[in-house]
């Protein structure tokens, strides 16, 4: 657990006096229990993936029946036979009705929108996960690498407190704080209603557990649902130590999952890179030439031809790709190099989006990469986005909101602190994109 986040590695403390090991251990335990690290990084991952999945679902809306519908080429009955064997989780196996399919697709779209906005993030992230898994597992032979990343990250996001900033949740928390704790009397209905409705779905999921889904996914859903209920009860009736304990547990789950997510991204690049090294085409520097001549991945043949016409260019890009992919995990220990490589990888994915016609895959990978973006940059980006929004809506900055700290101030504060997997922890007032 106390495996250092890149954040820690990037901020070599001047170490004035030698701190005894047990003290440092206690301090680390306090850090991972008191804060959900990387609030901006996890928020950008949330926004990135919900946006990717939303784009995808909207784009595929005309094709949805052919892809996931009960009468598509991969029919309900065929999916049932395969899922009886591999036990994957999809609520589309609950019924072969067309209406049910439309409902699930609509809920998947809705959950993507709500997760993007950060409305009741913890609950909505679970709906998002169920929607993504349901569609993808329904037609498992349809996906590509992009779907694969969305699948994994959707699972991880259910355990990550990804709505701490840039969310409607954060705006609500800020308003509540501005009104003062005393006026908490205003009843929040949406949460409990959502909880009850999701409880109904959960009972259905349990009822259908012999049909679809491994045991652990039902346990996960129950734990999350009971946890939400317990959280609400404790907040109402036991705001003391029990509330702090719940916060500690949520932080622990968040931080552990964040480490897993970061390692997962490293594994993706390490696998992609190390296997390439063994390939003769990547060794002789012609590898990139071939995908540029595959019919399925050349939406712009003239552009592909132009790029593929220069042997030197193809070799430089082929070698560069392998070097960047293999090197990336190791550069996490050096902030500046890491950031350079991060930019290189994001640019490469942007290129892939256009050149190979894989926008969803590329957007998903960029969203995954962004978990390593520096806080300073993200805070700056948030400030720019908020100013852009204000200008667009022709209103003064945060006109109807409690004053928030300007992004610049926060950024300066962090400038010496490194990426900080969350140096801007819970204390500072959260900035919001949508508020």
């Amino acid at each position, binding site marked *: *657990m*106390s495996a250092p*986040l890149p954040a*820690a590695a990037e*901020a070599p403390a001047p170490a004035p006096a030698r701190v005894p090991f047990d*003290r440092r251990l206690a*301090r680390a*335990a*306090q850090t*991972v*229990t*008191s804060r959900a*690290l990387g609030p901006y990084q996890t928020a950008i991952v949330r926004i990135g993936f919900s946006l990717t999945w939303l*784009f995808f679902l909207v784009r595929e809306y005309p*094709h949805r029946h*052919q892809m996931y519908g009960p*009468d598509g*080429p*991969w*029919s309900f009955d*065929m999916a049932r*036979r*395969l899922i009886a064997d*591999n036990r*994957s989780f999809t609520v589309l196996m609950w019924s072969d009705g067309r209406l049910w399919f439309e409902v699930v697709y609509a809920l998947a779209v809705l959950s993507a929108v709500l997760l993007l906005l950060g409305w009741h993030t913890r609950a909505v992230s679970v709906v998002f996960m169920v929607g993504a898994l349901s569609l993808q597992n329904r037609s498992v*032979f*349809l*996906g*590509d*690498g992009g779907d*694969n990343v969305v699948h994994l990250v959707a699972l991880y996001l259910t355990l990550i407190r990804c709505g701490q900033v840039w969310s409607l949740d954060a705006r609500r928390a800020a308003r509540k704080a501005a009104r003062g704790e005393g006026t908490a009397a205003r009843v929040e209905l949406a949460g409990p209603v959502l909880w009850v409705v999701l409880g109904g779905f959960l009972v259905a999921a349990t009822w259908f557990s012999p049909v679809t889904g491994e045991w652990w*996914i039902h346990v996960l859903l129950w734990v999350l649902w009971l946890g939400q209920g317990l959280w609400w009860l404790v907040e109402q009736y036991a705001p003391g*130590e029990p509330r*702090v304990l719940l916060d*500690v547990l949520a932080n*622990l789950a968040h*931080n*552990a999952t964040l*480490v897993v997510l970061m390692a997962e991204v490293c*594994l993706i690049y390490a*696998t*992609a890179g190390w296997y*390439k090294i063994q*390939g*003769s085409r*990547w060794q002789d520097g012609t590898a990139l030439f*071939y*995908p540029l001549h595959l*019919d*399925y991945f*050349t*939406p712009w043949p003239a552009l592909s031809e132009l790029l593929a016409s220069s*042997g030197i260019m193809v070799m430089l890009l082929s070698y560069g790709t392998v070097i960047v992919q293999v090197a990336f995990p190791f550069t996490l220990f050096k902030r500046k190099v890491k950031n350079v490589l991060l930019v290189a990888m994001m640019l490469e994915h942007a290129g892939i989006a256009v050149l190979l*016609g894989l*926008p*969803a895959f590329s957007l998903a990978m960029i969203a995954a990469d962004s978990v390593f973006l520096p806080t300073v940059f993200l805070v700056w980006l948030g400030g720019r986005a908020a100013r852009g929004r204000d200008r667009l809506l022709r209103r003064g900055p945060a006109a109807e909101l409690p004053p928030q700290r300007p992004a610049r101030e926060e950024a300066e504060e962090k400038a010496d*602190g*490194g990426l900080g997997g*969350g140096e801007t922890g819970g*204390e500072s007032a959260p900035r919001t994109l949508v508020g």
Partner: protein
Amino acid sequence: MGTGTGREARDRGGMSAHIDSGGDRRPAGGILALSLPYQVVAAVALAGLGVLACLHLAMVFLHVAPSNTLTKQHGQAVDDWIYPEFEQNWKLFAPNPLQQNVGVQVRAEVADAGGGTRTTGWIDLTAQDAEDVRGNVFPSHTQQNQLRRALDWYGNAHDDEGRPKGMRGRLSEEYMRRIVLLRIEGPGARADVGGEVRRIQLRRVARPVPAPHWSTEKRSTEPSIRLMPWWDVTDADRSRTETNR
């Protein structure tokens, strides 16, 4: 973990200083804000989640790593952990990128108006996809993945003699037939053969991408063709299966 500099510690309300001094004032959150019984719960959770995260990462690592001593001995445990929800494959264009355009073509035996049958010429289904992808900013999975991956899967689910490997092999044949019928039968089809399809035959055509012009390498560009058997088409292969319900 990211305790950072002293200045940040002050910003966070002197938390670190407080820890170091042994403290008579509890911090507002975290394990140090709790009394002993609660601290025990938190510590157990910390250990449990830590172990779980490490175990999960180890499993994912073994899943993506090449076959090795550990996976040869405990491959089943890794598979049980990973499949189906954490399955992943990041050998993107690795070890070597695909160096041939693999396509699928179909010809069909179609019922005639006169009661007889006629056989169509070869219809290139992959060429339809290629055409749809060209000039497309955001190709659909139905254009870029459905047929391509179905053919991939069909190949993996059959042995070298073209015999299906178990349930998946038979499913992959049914899947192929349904994808094909959707494209060649009926008024909504991309290449309507104009009648009821009785039987279909597929062939897989692989055209190697020619070596780059700057390369001295000699690469055969001769396409390799693999003919599949004729398949009878049944009602179960048609998309509209409401009657079966």
